[in-house]
């Protein structure tokens, strides 16, 4: 809340959210948040949740909840009614803001007050500033919970990661310059609210004084149109979004409709939230030579970004003849100044520089807490991320994927990420995933699911399973070679671009031998 108060005080007349003409100014956002705080306090709710696409109601509710000292809980509106009800029941007594069309979704829950988003916005727009101004009586010490984010729940029941005000304020102060944005800058937010990057985007851009343009439901055509019509200067996307944007821009080029310059106003494009296929980022760099690309690596539990690969590092890697430097294009860059990174073995001992292990992070923005559970931080404040990775000599962090996804074949740990990186380098391959399936002899066998480029696409290349196996054998070691390569139409992703390996394992289960480990 302090961040918004400073924004309203420092540049209250700037537009905070929406179109340059007719959007909400920072002062209006502050006033609406003040009114929302009063509304939220009145009902006796202990959290304010929202199961809705992005709209101006999102920043208003986020800051209004903080003002009222209530945690804000962005819920995944794509869940089924019963899944959504189960989460709402866990956080009750709660206010849940819903799309006007969807207010019936949580009809039968006691202790849950449903607010219609549009009715709330109308009510708050009419609210008058009280005599003597709004009380600035929010949690200043920052111990209170600002945001609860349910993890995607790939293993069992979803956990609610807890981010306190002090974590988020540390993140913003450590990574964003107050009023660092020029008045003509605008950020396009297409990541959904229930992703930590969607929350971080609101906080960072408010503090920077950058106008926020929201895309409620992503598709590449709408994204490209909004960049052009709203003169967007920066954006953050997940890898699947960038893949589709690149395809869209290529299609425009092919039919000659892109005209002068693909996206003339865009200066900066950040991506993160999953593994970026190297062909996608290389093509994006070619298509958008004026754009500064930033790869951000972070987790929900670390208040978003902890490491960055900056624009110059992208260009240097792309231009280099040294394979070790080129490989940095696939890295997460270097830790933020306020973040320490350590690579540990299974016993928690730091490994020698360059060796792989588990990524541990430490810093004031790192929460590592889940609601109703003991904090996961070590006594020294380290958070074991369960992501595997290594640091190179120049301090670049290479993330190989979730440790729980590691394939164990014949007692050897095989990281799916390194196999996938080799496979997608083949011009005929647009996407690939390697998984382990049961094998009596080896414990697990390696199965690669590969998506080929369309026969009529520009590359025109084709490839056989044997050729891909040989490619991996020549670039890695023979124990990394997939035992089977299966060509599939598409890989299963969730809507924020995370590969659903469990779904893939189920779909391809018949390529295992049915043994149990």
């Amino acid at each position, binding site marked *: 809340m302090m961040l918004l108060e400073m924004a309203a005080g420092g540049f209250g007349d700037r537009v905070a959210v929406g179109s340059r003409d007719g959007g909400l100014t920072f002062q209006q956002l502050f006033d609406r948040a003040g009114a929302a705080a009063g509304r939220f306090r009145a009902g006796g709710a202990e959290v304010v949740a929202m199961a809705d696409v992005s709209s101006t109601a999102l920043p208003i509710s986020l800051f209004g909840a903080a003002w009222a000292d209530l945690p804000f809980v962005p819920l995944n509106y794509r869940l089924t009614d019963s899944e959504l009800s189960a989460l709402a029941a866990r956080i009750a007594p709660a206010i849940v803001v819903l799309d006007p069309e969807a207010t019936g979704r949580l009809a039968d829950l006691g202790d849950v007050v449903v607010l219609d988003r549009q009715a709330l916005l109308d009510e708050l727009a009419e609210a008058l500033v009280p005599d003597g101004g709004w009380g600035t009586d929010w949690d200043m010490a920052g111990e209170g919970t600002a945001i609860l984010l349910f993890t995607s729940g790939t293993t069992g029941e979803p956990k609610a990661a807890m981010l306190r005000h002090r974590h988020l304020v540390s993140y913003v102060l450590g990574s964003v*310059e107050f009023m660092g944005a020029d008045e003509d800058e605008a950020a396009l937010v297409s990541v959904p609210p229930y992703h930590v*990057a969607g929350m971080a985007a609101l906080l960072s851009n408010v503090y920077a004084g950058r106008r926020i343009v929201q895309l409620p439901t992503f598709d590449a055509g709408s994204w490209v149109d909004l960049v052009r019509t709203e003169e967007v200067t920066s954006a953050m996307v997940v890898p699947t979004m960038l893949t589709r944007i690149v395809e869209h821009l290529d299609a425009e080029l092919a039919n000659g409709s892109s005209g002068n310059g693909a996206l003339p106003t865009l200066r900066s494009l950040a991506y993160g939230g999953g593994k970026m296929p190297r062909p996608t980022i290389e093509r994006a760099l070619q298509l958008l030579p004026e754009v500064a690309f930033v790869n951000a690596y972070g987790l929900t539990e670390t208040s978003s970004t902890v490491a960055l690969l900056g624009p110059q590092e992208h260009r240097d890697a792309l231009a280099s003849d040294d394979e070790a430097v080129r490989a940095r294009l696939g890295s997460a860059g270097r830790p933020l100044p306020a973040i320490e990174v350590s690579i540990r073995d299974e016993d928690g001992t730091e490994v020698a520089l360059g060796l792989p292990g588990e990524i541990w992070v430490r810093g004031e923005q790192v929460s590592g807490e889940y609601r109703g559970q003991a904090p996961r931080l070590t006594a020294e404040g380290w958070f074991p991320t369960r992501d595997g990775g290594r640091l190179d000599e120049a301090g670049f962090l290479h993330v190989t994927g979730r440790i729980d996804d590691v394939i164990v074949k014949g007692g050897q740990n095989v990281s799916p990420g390194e196999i996938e990186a080799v496979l997608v380098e083949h011009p005929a391959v647009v996407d690939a995933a390697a998984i382990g399936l049961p094998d009596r002899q080896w414990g697990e066998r390696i199965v690669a699911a590969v998506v080929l480029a369309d026969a009529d696409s520009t590359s025109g290349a084709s490839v056989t399973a044997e050729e891909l196996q040989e490619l991996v054998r020549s670039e890695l070691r023979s124990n990394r070679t997939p035992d089977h390569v299966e060509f599939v139409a598409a890989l299963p992703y969730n809507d924020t671009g995370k590969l659903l390996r469990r779904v893939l394992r189920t779909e391809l289960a018949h390529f295992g031998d049915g043994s149990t480990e």
Partner: protein
Amino acid sequence: MVGDALERWPDDHAQESPMPDMKPGSRFTSNVCTTEVIVVRGVGEADLRCGGSSMLSADSIPDGGPPDPDAAAGTLMGKRYVDADDTLEVLCTKPGDGSLGLGDVLLDLKEAKPLPASD
């Protein structure tokens, strides 16, 4: 002798206004200009000054006149200031004409290396 002892009681004044606790989240306002700050990293009780004069709790009315010329370089909105040992850190939430100090020693502007926008 008794009178002597009474005269040695200047701590009386200090007891009326003990040095404030620099807890994270505490807000202070300048006694000599429009500067307001919030503590980001605390050091316990300390004499946080602005323009050479002890800062006041957030709701106080300034009455201290102009800043001391030796502490009048001004504060910048949204900048962080730290002491030499990097133990106290405050964030300027409203700018003014005074300079921040811990006792007689001025605080340094914390230079942040600009990061590319990642959100």
